[in-house]
């Protein structure tokens, strides 16, 4: 993975020193909260319902063991012993004090981490496929490009006061695990007819209150033009994006109102006009950054592991874990292990300091010192020898981290909702907990197969409900929480925005409604091979709507 050189370390040290000064000025009363606000936001510090919240960047979701130990240390020393992994592949601490934040940032800097640009109207943490560098289906590792974009976008003088926040995602496999089509810019690594590698460029996707799927502005962008093309998009957006209405300020609205063809033309014209400003990426420089992300030296193994097969025979829970939480690796005899942060009835994305330490140790011993944070709020050990998986599993069991539900109905994404967030209109976490308890870690859940439930506690859609196979949006109607359900959303390469079923459901009804939807699917699917999303796309809304609203004639739902 990427390692800081002196330059990177110097950059972060300067920012920490500046923030320490700003906090001191705030604490002494020299500056007001209003004047302090832009400074704290530049450093990922939000003021939430109960306290400050610090969001720490995990660039493209990649961590090593030492960094994870530091995240545990921060949870223990400055917070209440836990942290919350987010859909942006970051981690949030919900209870730091203002006085402590400069020390937290200084501690993070010792392990090459920071909180820069995790908030504010700037280019946010660049995300990537959480299986990058390990997945069997990958064409090329997207992380070197995410790293180059991360560096170039850090405190960019021209693009730090954009109309609104800006999110870039990069993926390098045909299967899109990074949801690039719902990002402001999505770069998809592709090979053109000449066999050259480059990017398909998607612009103007996003969720929030106006969900939109990105438009493909370019089929093929040569690698050398990555930064120049990004600069062109950013400049068009910075100059032309709406600033009159916060809710219409994202680039998706500009693309929508301008039109796809006109937007493409504007970006291409700016790109062509860059002239002396054109920042071209030399192949030698790409190769130098790529070297940081080289596949670790993995011992040659046979494709089948006798240890795994033996354990499978005697331990059905282990077998379930192998089936759901282990993904094919590029190398024979290795697997990618997903550590679910969705224990049945638990809070999605939360991990205790002890769990973080245990995962850091597992990474050091069994996964080439690498950990990933997924946008699905799970953690990943990307390079585990199949022979080692029984040992990894046993330790995960001890840490209560062995839930075999990756991709299943209980692997729910949920935003913090009204339990923590100042913007939320409804609670998300308790809804996730109830649905999780309803289905549990059971044969039924496994039989239902892949089904992504995503829950947001307000229309800002941090829980990605628009792209949930089943999406749940918490709203407030006359002082009462009500939950709108959408079906058929997807964040992958077949990206779609979910359709609303109809009137919303109360807190007490929503779990039953989800069960009704699942039962309808189970009754109508052609076989176990037809997953929920495929079945919905074949069947449409009608049978689900009937089941939800017409079966109980006279019911007030």
């Amino acid at each position, binding site marked *: 993975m990427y390692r800081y050189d002196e330059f990177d370390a110097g950059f972060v040290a300067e920012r920490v020193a500046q923030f320490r*000064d700003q906090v001191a000025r705030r604490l002494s009363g020299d500056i007001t909260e209003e004047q302090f606000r832009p400074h704290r936001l530049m450093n990922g510090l939000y003021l939430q319902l109960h306290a400050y919240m610090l969001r720490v960047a995990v660039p493209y979701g990649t961590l090593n063991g030492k960094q994870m130990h530091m995240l545990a240390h921060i949870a223990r020393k400055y917070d209440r012993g836990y942290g919350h992994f987010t859909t942006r592949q970051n981690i949030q601490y919900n209870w730091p004090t203002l006085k402590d934040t400069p020390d937290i940032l200084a501690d993070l800097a010792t392990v090459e981490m920071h909180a820069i640009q995790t908030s504010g109207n700037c280019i946010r943490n660049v995300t990537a496929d959480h299986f990058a560098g390990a997945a069997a289906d990958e064409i090329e590792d997207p992380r070197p490009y995410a790293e180059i974009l991360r560096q170039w976008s850090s405190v960019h*003088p*021209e693009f*730090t*006061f954009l109309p609104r926040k800006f999110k870039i995602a990069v993926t390098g496999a045909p299967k899109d695990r990074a949801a690039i089509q719902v990002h402001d810019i999505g770069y998809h690594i592709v090979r053109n007819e000449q066999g050259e590698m480059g990017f398909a460029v998607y612009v103007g996707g996003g969720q929030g209150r106006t969900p939109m799927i990105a438009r493909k502005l370019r089929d093929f962008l040569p690698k050398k033009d990555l930064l120049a093309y990004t600069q062109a998009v950013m400049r068009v957006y910075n100059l032309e994006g709406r600033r009159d209405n916060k809710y219409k300020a994202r680039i998706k609205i500009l693309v929508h109102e301008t039109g796809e063809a006109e937007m493409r033309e504007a970006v291409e014209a700016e790109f062509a006009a860059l002239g002396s400003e054109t920042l071209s990426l030399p192949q030698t420089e790409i190769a130098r950054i790529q070297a940081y992300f080289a596949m670790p030296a993995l011992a040659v193994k046979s494709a089948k592991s006798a240890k795994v097969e033996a354990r499978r025979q005697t331990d059905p829970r282990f077998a379930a874990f192998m089936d759901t939480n282990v993904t094919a690796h590029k190398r024979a005899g290795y697997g990618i292990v997903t550590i679910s942060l969705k224990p049945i009835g638990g809070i999605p994305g939360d991990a205790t300091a002890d769990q973080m330490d245990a995962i850091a140790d597992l990474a050091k011993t069994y996964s080439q010192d690498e950990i990933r944070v997924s946008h699905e709020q799970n953690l990943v050990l990307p390079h585990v020898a199949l022979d080692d998986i029984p040992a990894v599993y046993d330790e995960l069991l001890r840490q209560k981290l062995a839930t075999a539900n990756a991709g299943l109905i209980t692997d729910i994404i949920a935003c913090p909702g009204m339990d923590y967030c100042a913007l939320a209109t409804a609670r998300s976490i308790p809804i996730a907990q109830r649905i999780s308890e309803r289905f549990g870690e059971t044969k039924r859940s496994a039989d239902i197969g892949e089904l992504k439930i995503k829950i947001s506690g307000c229309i800002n859609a941090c829980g990605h409900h628009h792209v949930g196979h089943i999406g749940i949006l918490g709203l407030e109607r006359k002082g009462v929480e009500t939950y709108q359900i959408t079906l058929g959303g997807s964040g992958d390469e077949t990206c779609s925005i979910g359709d609303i079923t109809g009137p919303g459901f109360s807190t007490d009804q929503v779990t039953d409604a989800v069960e009704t939807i699942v039962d309808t699917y189970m009754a109508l699917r052609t076989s176990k091979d037809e997953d929920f999303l495929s079945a919905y796309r074949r069947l449409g809304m009608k049978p689900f709507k009937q089941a939800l609203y017409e079966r109980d004639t006279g019911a007030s739902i």
Partner: protein
Amino acid sequence: MTLFKNGAFVEDNWRHIDEGEDAPPAGHVILPLDWWKAERAVYDGSNAPLGLKIEPGADISEYVEDISRFSVIALVFPKYNDGRAFSTAQLLRTRYGFMGEIRAVGEVLIDQIQMMERCGFNAFEINNAPTEKALRSGEYTRFTHFYQPAVTTEPPAGTRPWLRKST
């Protein structure tokens, strides 16, 4: 209001003209873009030094021919977080070859000044007391590590073509 230019507080010998105001023949005035569009004939054949004030949102590519006529271009920040003028300054310097003074007016705050400089601003109208205090005392953070080339001359650092380090 005080003017901070090229790293020092200086006397401002320019005056802003409002819409509808008459044009002084001797110049040394900063004209709103609409004023210039309507009344520019007044200065036909004159060598009087002139400035132009551009609000964010104006399309400067329409006035490329006029730019060399001005000694000062003032770009407006209606709020500190309206970042359009950063791009406009960058374009004036790199694409349109403007060599004169680029002046930041409006809500100009200490933490943005170095970014403005890196985009090509070299003069700042300061209305904010803490910003003036910080500039006068020199007690504010100046960064020396950058991840992008800027309009100002900064030597590249190390191997990465996008890195810059100020000296």
